[in-house]
């Protein structure tokens, strides 16, 4: 067992961290966020140059073959910088569908475009009443000759407003919450019948409401089996959850470091507030929650491509529970220990708090996964 990064991984980590340290300060991030897309096309090009957009793809597909650990390294660094670019949406989710579900022709067409930075994607899954249930799909895909016609509405599609293509889940058969009958379709963002309403999100990113009205998708652009796409969707969202866990660990680390620094520098009653033992213990509790989260993020990374599906799903659920709980505690305490300034937009800490809060609501919050895990028998076999 070895928790240390190998030489190659270390190089990747150093280079992404260096890039973000140079180009993603708090003020620079503000400028990136204020642009029309809500993220920096220039940074995206730099990620492409560094090979970050190639990270999870196999060498045969033109990728760097870095697997879930590579994703973990990048996402943790993105969490530390609060990076706004659609890496999760494009490389982890979009790339995940291609890696796990696409045929050779689809891969050959699209992966190179992701890798060179010319294609962005977004995952259009959530619907008005689906909450976190991946099988709760009412958007329909009706077979019509050699193509499908999609109708429905997708909600809170992260980066859905700027994405070149959308990965849409839609039902070819079955009732609303049936596990079978859900397909995965690749839809051009500007295709006839697609309308998108973009908006900012609480954590400074962007999302969209997507309306699909008679959108025609050629059979070539169905990913995987249209009758049975759910296992693929679950595999990819589990990978995305693992990535989000790593991002959350990055955000929590910064909140913890910033808070400890603040305890050393902020003076009240003539002493640094870090002299008060109750605050020392609080910072220690934050550290403990952070390290528990880091450990579960590593578990999630390790299990993201586990072949035993039930085992994978349980571990990922467990990790999301820990991340949600740790994120809440670390975020709330970071604000609390900063006092009034922690409540302001001017200080970075509040922005980290908001991001980690929103990570909890992505792909199922802590309670959702706790129920799922309990229903699946927990993490320790009886």
């Amino acid at each position, binding site marked *: 067992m070895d928790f240390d990064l190998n030489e190659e991984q270390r190089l990747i980590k150093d280079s992404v961290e260096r890039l973000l340290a140079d180009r993603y300060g708090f003020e620079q991030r503000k400028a990136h966020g204020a642009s029309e897309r809500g993220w920096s096309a220039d940074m995206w090009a730099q990620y492409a140059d560094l090979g970050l957009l190639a990270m999870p793809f196999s060498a045969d597909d033109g990728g760097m073959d870095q697997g879930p650990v590579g994703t973990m390294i990048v996402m943790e660094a993105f969490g530390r910088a609060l990076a706004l670019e659609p890496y999760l949406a494009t490389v982890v989710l979009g790339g995940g569908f291609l890696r796990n579900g696409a045929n050779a022709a689809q891969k050959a067409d699209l992966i190179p475009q992701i890798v060179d930075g010319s294609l962005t994607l977004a995952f259009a899954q959530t619907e008005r009443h689906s909450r976190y249930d991946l099988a709760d799909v009412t958007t329909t895909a009706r077979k019509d000759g050699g193509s499908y016609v999609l109708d429905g509405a997708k909600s809170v599609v992260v980066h859905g407003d700027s994405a070149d293509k959308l990965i849409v889940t839609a039902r070819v058969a079955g009732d609303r919450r049936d596990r079978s009958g859900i397909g995965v379709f690749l839809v051009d963002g500007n295709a006839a019948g697609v309308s998108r309403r973009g908006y900012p999100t609480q954590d400074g990113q962007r999302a969209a409401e997507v309306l699909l009205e008679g959108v025609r998708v050629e059979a070539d652009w169905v990913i995987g089996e249209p009758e049975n796409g759910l296992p693929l969707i679950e595999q990819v969202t589990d990978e995305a959850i693992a990535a989000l866990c790593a991002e959350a660990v990055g955000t929590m680390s910064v909140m913890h470091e910033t808070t400890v620094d603040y305890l050393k520098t902020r003076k009240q009653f003539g002493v640094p507030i870090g002299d008060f033992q109750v605050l020392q213990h609080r910072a220690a509790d934050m550290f403990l929650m952070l390290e528990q989260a880091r450990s579960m993020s590593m578990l999630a990374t390790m299990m993201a491509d586990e072949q035993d599906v039930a085992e994978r799903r349980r571990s990922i659920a467990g990790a999301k529970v820990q991340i949600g709980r740790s994120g809440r505690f670390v975020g709330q305490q970071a604000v609390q220990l900063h006092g009034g300034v922690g409540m*302001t937009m001017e200080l970075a800490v509040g922005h980290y708090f908001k991001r980690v809060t929103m990570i909890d609501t992505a792909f199922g919050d802590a309670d959702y996964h706790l129920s799922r895990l309990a229903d699946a028998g927990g993490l320790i076999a009886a």
Partner: protein
Amino acid sequence: MDLAFTKEEQAFREEVRTFFHENIPADIHAKMIDQHSLEKQDLVTWQRILNAKGWAVPHWPVEYGGTGWDPIKLYIFWEEMQQTPAPQPLQFGVHMVGPVIATFGNEAQKQRFLPRIANLDDWWCQGFSEPGAGSDLASLRTKAVRDGDHYVVNGQKTWTTLAQHADWIFCLVRTNPDVKKQVGISFLLIDMKTPGIEVRPIQTIDGGKEVNEVFFTDVRVPVENLVGEENRGWDYAKFLLGNERSGIARIGISKQRIRRIKELAGQEFYGSAPMIENQRFREKLAAVEVELKALEMTQLRVVAAEAKRGDKGKPDPASSILKIKGSELQQATTELLMEVVGPYALPFQPGLVEGSNEPPIGMDWAATAAPTYFNWRKVSIYGGSNEIQKNIIAKAILGL
């Protein structure tokens, strides 16, 4: 021991509840229910409705507009107002500077300021905190130097809530730098229109603009605006903060929010059943209700003891319990609402929070859930942070 409210108290509750529901303007009521931001005018309108009824400042001495109700009736009154839900009166006047002036001010100050506070003719803000003086308030450095019949004030206040609307600010200022820090502080009333005052907004993490920095440069304040005696300001501030703490439990607000959460969780589906039928969610909600009930009983014990002693205004150290638990429970309700909202916590719709009629993303009540959760982190920071309250319990109650 008789733990029930008397018949008379129950009738009183009915009376105030009916009055609130019949008299709150519908638009203000709707904003309160959806937690939309209130305009200055909304608070003014509501305060004047109360004032016309003689209920603007029920806790003040009768000669200045008080109703003479005992602490139990006062508790019922505020609780019902919170549960309506109706806007809380602007606390800086009604709960803070008003009682200070009524207790320590001279007759001229009482005549001049109290009726205008009761009618919200003057909007007050609180100038206590400074960048370097938060929890350690007594270390404040804004100074006031006597010059003939004026004080000349220089320095900076911060976190000044709603100063952007204010006509007046009450400030703690240092009038004697050469003595122990608590005994060189005075309590000054300053007209915000005086030359040399500058207000700069601070944006809070939810996107709101409720706090400000206030800068004072050679601001000349007539000595007649000194409350009580020079260098006794710390005593008045302690009196004021004690009042602030006992009101801060805001149990009525938490009760109303829980009702609202139940209503919304009954509408919102979780799988094939409404969220309220989700066992885990129900149990979490019930757990908060248990704690809230306990806090309500604690609050009533404090109130009843106060009624018996008859020494209104002297804060019970147990009010620190009310502050800590009250703020934690208010925060817990904001977390529960976030859970009901689920994925729809994500869209940032500041226009909707301010009450515009742009089409909402998801449920039409979702927009305020996350901002309220973020914003409500403040309640464990201000009014004496929860850590400071625990220090008070440890020292004043436990003798540690």
